[in-house]
């Protein structure tokens, strides 16, 4: 079985390829935008000489590149997505690209859609957590966001992307598995999720406080993607992805300060964050957007309202956390410390 991994040159992508190889899959097409991002994949090819690792470069906005990407594959791990840039770019890189990819799958004559499985990497950002109470449990039954336009554009584009996949799945009948990771972290990733706080100039505003951080160490996340993506019972299912032992935002920040660097931080209680958001929002409205509404009450509630999480459904499928959270955090902080010294 030939497998396609889009976004294979990215932070998560290379780890998914590694886990696929570790699980014994031997025919993997790695699709990535730039050849310069293929270094890790080339190392993997050497580590697994029995496997056929095909490195395929192109742009998924291009119909012909998509045709090339999906040729002869029956299992697709779709990780490519827009992570930054303008709203138009995020939608183009996440939603348009997905539609182009799905259309390319439909155009194939040698493999029917019904014999194709697509594994979509979505996001926790698609959940409508604002309506939930503080401390409410977020699981796969939690309703999706009804007002994505009030959230950050990334979450908005990821929600639209996921909706698009379900629309196509309904029409074309392929197997769809959706994974919604929380905060993916690890070597190669960033130091802080917004759930911990925001850096403004030299000061870090610690806004997450005692909220649980739905951390997913990149190796554990990749393992979850491969386990769910290849499990026969996973068709048509959604899985939340996070590690078993979750620190609070405060614990993460404390560990970061102890292991990476001393940073100046100011902890704001949630009610202060809400008041600040309310003022910023009012000014943004009154000034017709002279300063961006970085924080609004809605965004604050989504990011720092405070929820609890469960990965029970994923564990029931057989996923196990490969790297324990303390070791994962230690490795991540070691990497971040090295980055700081550069």
């Amino acid at each position, binding site marked *: 079985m030939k497998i396609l991994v889009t976004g294979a040159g990215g932070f998560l992508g290379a780890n998914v390829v590694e886990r696929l190889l570790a699980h014994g899959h031997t025919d993997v097409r790695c699709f990535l935008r730039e050849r310069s991002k293929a270094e890790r994949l080339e190392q993997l090819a050497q580590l697994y000489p029995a496997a056929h690792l095909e490195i395929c470069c192109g742009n998924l906005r291009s119909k012909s590149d998509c045709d090339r990407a999906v040729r002869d594959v029956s299992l697709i791990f779709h990780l490519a997505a827009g992570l930054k840039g303008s709203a*138009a770019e995020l*939608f183009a890189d996440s939603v*348009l690209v997905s*539609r182009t990819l799905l259309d390319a799958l439909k155009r194939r004559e040698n493999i029917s859609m019904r014999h194709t499985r697509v594994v979509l990497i979505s996001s926790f950002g698609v959940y409508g957590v604002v309506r939930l109470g503080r401390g409410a449990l977020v699981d796969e039954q939690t309703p999706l966001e009804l007002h994505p336009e009030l959230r950050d554009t990334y979450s908005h*584009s990821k929600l*639209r992307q996921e909706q698009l996949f379900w629309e196509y799945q309904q029409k074309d009948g392929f197997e769809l598995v959706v994974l919604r990771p929380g905060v993916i972290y690890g070597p190669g990733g960033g130091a802080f999720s917004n759930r911990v706080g925001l850096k403004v100039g030299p000061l870090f505003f610690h806004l997450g406080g005692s909220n649980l951080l739905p951390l997913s160490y990149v190796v554990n996340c990749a393992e979850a993607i491969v386990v769910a993506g290849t499990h026969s019972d996973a068709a048509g299912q959604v899985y939340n992805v996070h590690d078993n032992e979750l620190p609070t935002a405060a614990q993460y920040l404390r560990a970061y300060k102890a292991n990476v660097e001393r940073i100046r931080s100011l902890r704001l209680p949630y009610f202060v964050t809400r008041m600040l958001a309310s003022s910023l929002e009012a000014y943004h409205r*009154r000034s*017709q*957007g*002279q300063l961006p509404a970085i924080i609004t009450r809605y965004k604050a509630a989504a990011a720092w309202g405070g929820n609890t999480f469960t990965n029970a459904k994923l564990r029931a499928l057989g996923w196990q956390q490969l790297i324990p959270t303390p070791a994962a955090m230690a490795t991540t902080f070691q990497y971040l410390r090295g980055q700081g010294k550069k």
Partner: protein
Amino acid sequence: MGLKIAIVGCGKIADAHVEEIRKIPSVQLVAVCDLEPIMAEQLASRYAVPHWYSDVGGMLEAEKPQVLHITTPPESHLPLTAQAVAAGCHVFLEKPVALRHHDSQAIIQTVVTAQKKLAVNYWPNFEAPALELRRLYQTGVLGTPVHLESFYGYNLAGEYGTALKRDPNHWVLRMPGKLFQNVLDHVLNKITPFLDDDEPLIQAIAYCGDDAQDRSPSGQLLDELRVTLRGRQTSAYATFSSHARPVGHTLRVYGTNNTAHVDFASRSLVLERKQTFPSALGRLIPPFLVARDHLRQGLRNANRFRHARFHYFDGMRQLLGEFYLSIERDTPPPIAYSEILRVSAMMEKIFEQVYPEVFA
């Protein structure tokens, strides 16, 4: 209800159009359109625009807007303008006007024949310091312009630049004048109002300022441009730079009376006056006069900020306001068509030298 506005083209710049249109209370944005339904849908969703379309003809027929903003890549500007004026719309066009000068001429001709109005998004020229510069020129404070220097910096590592580098098929790179064609309007349209010649002598050189670019998927991209222009009595020097830091955006007008320096990035205008102080005082006092000008500009900007008139695209709001007013009152549009065509013709001449294989 005032003018009904619609937008075709829902890429990145369309956000700025929506935001500035919404600041003008007398008009209403009724619909947006993009060939890609997803792009039209996302723009409408984020800004609560009542309707979105993927067919411009359908939108024009159903919504009957009086003004169509065209924010698509430039190769589509001529057919879309023709379609818009045929549907009874005035046109607000995103730069560059067209890929080739003859298309720019055809666009203007189409609008004039249909007795409609057109403006191009030369928004920096409608920011407060640019308007002040125009006043200084018209009231004779500057005297006759002798020389101009227009500088435009570009950040290839920024949002726009990164998008280009990541996508070798980006519409900007598909234009015959490539990166320069997307920004040269802003470099030249500041010069043309002061240049005393419709067909100045032009010499242009371009090169790539980054060796590492050779390894990028898009290959080598010319990203530094120098242009000298010689009119009858006025000369000019235009610079486009992707590597100079900070990323600047300035215009310097050397007049026979005084010299003005406009910094578009910090929205300031400083007048360097003819020297009248004797001896050493002539060297001592001028820096204080310049400092006084900077202080005044800072205070004016603070006042604009206080009154919520200090947005990034404030010049666009001003330009749109003037354009819509010209439609309502049937007065000439804010930018003379002759200016638009002069810029277009100058760009063509520059590209003939920079990309002779394409523009020959």
